[in-house]
């Protein structure tokens, strides 16, 4: 039982994650060097930081891959408690960037509590819904109680305000509840309430409403430099400028002062500009491999906790990707959410790698069990 083998590792998953992350580092460098030179007089400023986080991220990934995931079950009270503490702390001592208090500075490092919440929330939901399977048909006894915790966490995140992250977490929550086997009737209720809440949040704040309006008709407010539609149109121009085959790596023009946040939430248009459809397909393909592996891992996990955890991780990743890609393609409003693994950002990268490390651990455990079972059948003499 205790023997770990090389072939237990999910090399396909690890490979896809590594490729997507490395590709992200290259593209972050390409997209950020004009800003780095302009703002920090160092073209590699963002590259260096991203590489640093990547190296730490490898350690985090390896650590998560080797800690048996079942152990996290017991830590849920601690994780949720810590999440709430950090979210409260960020509201008090957080640094305000672009009008949102999302960061806490620890010396040279800024951390984003909301990113930490992503991981905690998935573990918590997987744990709590795997235990509530008996009551899953009951809304009040089964579905509802954990949602109170979710509501508290999301409430704090909305207060920062970081509606994009809250929306992504909301989607993840709904997915986990859905996969837990909740009744469709309950799902519609939950979806309806969530939609109403986000509609309320969007419509009551003028700048969010403006973003929503500009999303509907971006070209109407084209001159609103710095507004959401300006960024969207600059993204469109990048995509159009690149054409089907791209203008070549490093050759983007739009990253020169034109497209804001080219290295974070608008990295997809830069990839499209420089590498054309190949860059887009590479990203979608690698994401597809990760998703395929994740679904497979979830389905073959031995316990309900493992299954929900794996699905939670996969769909957390996918919902973030959808919100980001939908925004740059003009299919959804812009929320400023980074693309997982690709976009610049330490907290996001570390937490995403942690989640994927956890996923890899589930996979490894599945493989090991399958192997041990095989060995048990074929070589009954040992043990």
């Amino acid at each position: 039982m205790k023997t770990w083998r090389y072939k237990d590792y999910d090399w396909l998953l690890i490979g896809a994650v590594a490729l997507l992350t490395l590709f992200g580092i290259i593209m972050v460098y390409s997209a950020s060097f004009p800003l780095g030179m302009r703002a920090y007089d160092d073209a590699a400023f963002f590259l260096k930081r991203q590489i640093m986080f990547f190296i730490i991220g490898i350690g985090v990934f390896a650590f998560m891959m080797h800690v048996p995931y079942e152990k996290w079950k017991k830590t849920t009270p601690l994780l949720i408690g810590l999440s709430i503490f950090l979210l409260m702390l960020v509201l008090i001592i957080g640094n305000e960037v672009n009008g949102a208090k999302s960061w806490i500075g620890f010396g040279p490092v800024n951390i984003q509590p909301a990113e930490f919440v992503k991981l905690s929330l998935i573990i918590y939901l997987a744990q709590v819904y795997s235990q509530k399977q008996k009551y899953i048909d009951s809304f009040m006894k089964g579905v509802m109680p954990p949602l109170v915790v979710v509501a508290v966490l999301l409430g704090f995140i909305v207060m920062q305000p970081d509606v994009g992250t809250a929306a992504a977490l909301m989607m993840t929550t709904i997915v986990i509840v859905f996969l837990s086997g909740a009744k469709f009737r309950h799902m519609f209720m939950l979806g309806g309430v969530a939609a109403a809440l986000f509609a309320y949040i969007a419509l009551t704040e003028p700048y969010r409403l403006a973003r929503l309006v500009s999303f509907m008709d971006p070209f109407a407010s084209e001159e609103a430099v710095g507004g959401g539609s300006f960024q969207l149109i600059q993204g469109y121009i990048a995509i159009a400028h690149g054409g089907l085959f791209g203008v070549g790596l490093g050759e983007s023009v739009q990253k020169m002062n034109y497209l804001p946040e080219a290295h974070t939430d608008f990295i997809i248009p830069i990839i499209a500009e420089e590498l054309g459809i190949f860059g887009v397909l590479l990203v979608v393909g690698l994401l597809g491999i990760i998703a395929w592996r994740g679904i497979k891992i979830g389905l073959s996990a031995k316990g309900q906790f493992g299954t929900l955890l794996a699905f939670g991780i996969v769909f957390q990743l996918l919902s973030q990707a959808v919100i980001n890609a939908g925004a740059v393609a003009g299919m959804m409003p812009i929320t400023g959410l980074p693309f997982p693994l690709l976009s610049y950002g330490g907290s996001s990268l570390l937490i995403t790698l942690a989640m994927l490390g956890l996923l890899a651990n589930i996979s490894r455990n599945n493989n090991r069990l399958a192997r041990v079972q095989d060995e048990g059948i074929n070589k009954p003499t040992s043990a």
Partner: protein
Amino acid sequence: MKKLKNTKVRALLLVIAVAVFFIIFTGRMVYIQVGKTVEGNDLASMADSRYTTTETVEAKRGTIYDKQGEPLAEQVPSYSVYAVLDESYDDHVKNPARVARELGPLIGMEPAQLEDMLERDQYQVELGSGSKYLTLSEREEIEQLDLAGIHFREEPTRYYPNQTFASHVLGYTNRDMSEAQMGLEAGLNEELTGEDGTKTESEENALLDEEETTTNTAKDGEDVYLTLDGNIQSVLEQSMSEVEENYSPNKMMGIVADADSGEILGMSNRPSFNPNEYEEIENYTNYAVSDQYEPGSTIKMFTLAAAIDKGVYEGKDTYESGTYEVSGETIRDHNNGEGWGEITYNEGLRRSSNVAFMRIALEILPEGALFDYLKKFGFGEETGIDLPNEADGALAEETPLNVGITAFGQASTVTPIQMIQGATAIANDGEMMQPYVIDRIENPNNNETTYQSEPKTAGTPISEKAARQTREKLQTVIEGENGTGAPYQIDGVEVAGKTGTAQISDPEGGGYLSGENQNIFSFIGMAPVDDPEIIVYVVVDRPELEPTETGSDAVSAIFNPVMQQSLSYMNLTPSDVEDTKAYEESGIEFEDYTGKSVNKAENAAENAGLEPVVIGSGNQVESQIPTNTERLIVGEKVIFLTNGQKSIPDVSGWSLREIQRLEKLLEIDIDTSGSGYVSSQSVEPGTAVSAAGNMEVELVPPDELQDAQTDQEETEENNQENENGEQQPQEAETEGSETQESDTEESTGEQQPEESEAPVENQ
């Protein structure tokens, strides 16, 4: 272990949803990549416009220059003040009270009001109208206050450096040159306006310093050079301003023309205006070309010229002055019809008798002849001068009454410029010259001359002889006994001309304005009589006269200085009149020889085409003037001061400029009088400088320097003509009657031959 229920199906549903999203996403990316449009918006062209910035390079409006090349209208930078209030900007207003207190007075704002403005919650504020269109020196004055938060913006502005100066000729443009409003500024707007250029910067690789810049150079507007002579215009403006102040006339106009070419050398009106302060214009009309009025007696010069040219003028014939009746109307001489008894036509001319000219028009000249002549002199028709809004005047309907009174200046109307044009025929030996003010137009971009005017004949209404005789007669108006033109006598200048005192048609209709001072006083004169160079026409409308004053006091206060100075400017050699700048640019550079040997310095000066003057007996140059910073013209004097005994040089023939240099070099006072060149000096040449004391020199115009010689020539000429046998008897006769008529009248040499010519025409 229990499996989650339906998980596989549910997971599959979600995966399909996500897959569908990414298929749509990829499709949309391809759609944008290939189609390059989103919802019909062309992204490619939006990209192009983002990557390139196009700036306008503003073209400079052309400059208007006078004859000497001095700018009369030019584009200069001006400055506007604004204050930055926002604290996020480093240089913002920190102490509104101090700024208000110190800046307020300089921009014409109440400090309290200014302080209020400076405390507004705005990023920046524009200050009042007094903070706009500041000159460089005004800007510097504000900058010296060293006020935080006070900034300047530079704007090109039209500026008229001479202020009130040929204002109606120049006209004006709005300060920002957005609109040309009147005068040549408006008339030549197309030429003066340049073509803005563009500067397109492609920022494709701005960060890699691979900026591509394409510049479409601005084409500056063309420069206009006028025939106006700054010096003459200056005298005209000055004397007209004095008259305006002393006599407060309703309006005035003055024109100075070059008799030989028709070039307008000066033109001014009152009321005038300062084009830099165009808000205060009260009169937009350039009367000199746009006003039409009954000219009064000045037109008699043309009636006279017509009669002389026709060969019918007999100056010694007499007529009964006082009144004349035509078509039932009684026309009176200007002394209420009293007249002067039976007088000669010559006296009638001198006294400006209306009756004399009615007789000439109706009895002496054949029917229709006067109007034919007036038409040939250009009346009733635009001269075609290159100024906007010219009027044409109108000859009255040709009835006997109208012909009669037109002959002395009523019924028909004229414009001042027509008077000038007509007078050129008399001045220019019969050849009438079309007046013009534009000398040439130059394109500064390629230094090409795009327009060059030439003197243009506008006809030959009278013969050369008739012209000369007319001038002779007109000279007696000024110099003869009882001449109405006596106030226009100028020392040393022989003037021919005609006075005018016109009644003013009642604008209400029916007759003429009556009462004190309700007259237009005018004078048109030319000089020198022999070969006139300058024609000056001055009109003063309804001056306020004291009982002791006459209208000609006001008119002569303009005519006399203008004529005198114009002649002296015309007589100077071109190099003296030329703007110093013009020849300093093309002049000779001459080294400083201070400390070097006198011989060397002298030789160098001679080789450079300069005239060395050495003062002192030493052999080493102690100082020199002009120094090497000035550029010199050929033949100019370079004065070397040596280390030895210094004595006063012979300065006869030196110019004022050279005298001033000498004064500076020797550190002595030299008083000058007159203008032109030195004719005499109070300190003998050779006197030691130390013993010179106050030196006086007298300057005279160059023609007078050669007075003796000129007189001789004239005498010879007269003798030659007198030797013409055929003319002798008639000449004697004419001379005789003339002498009888006015004993005291000088029977000058010039008068004799010309008097003699009238009868010749008769033959």
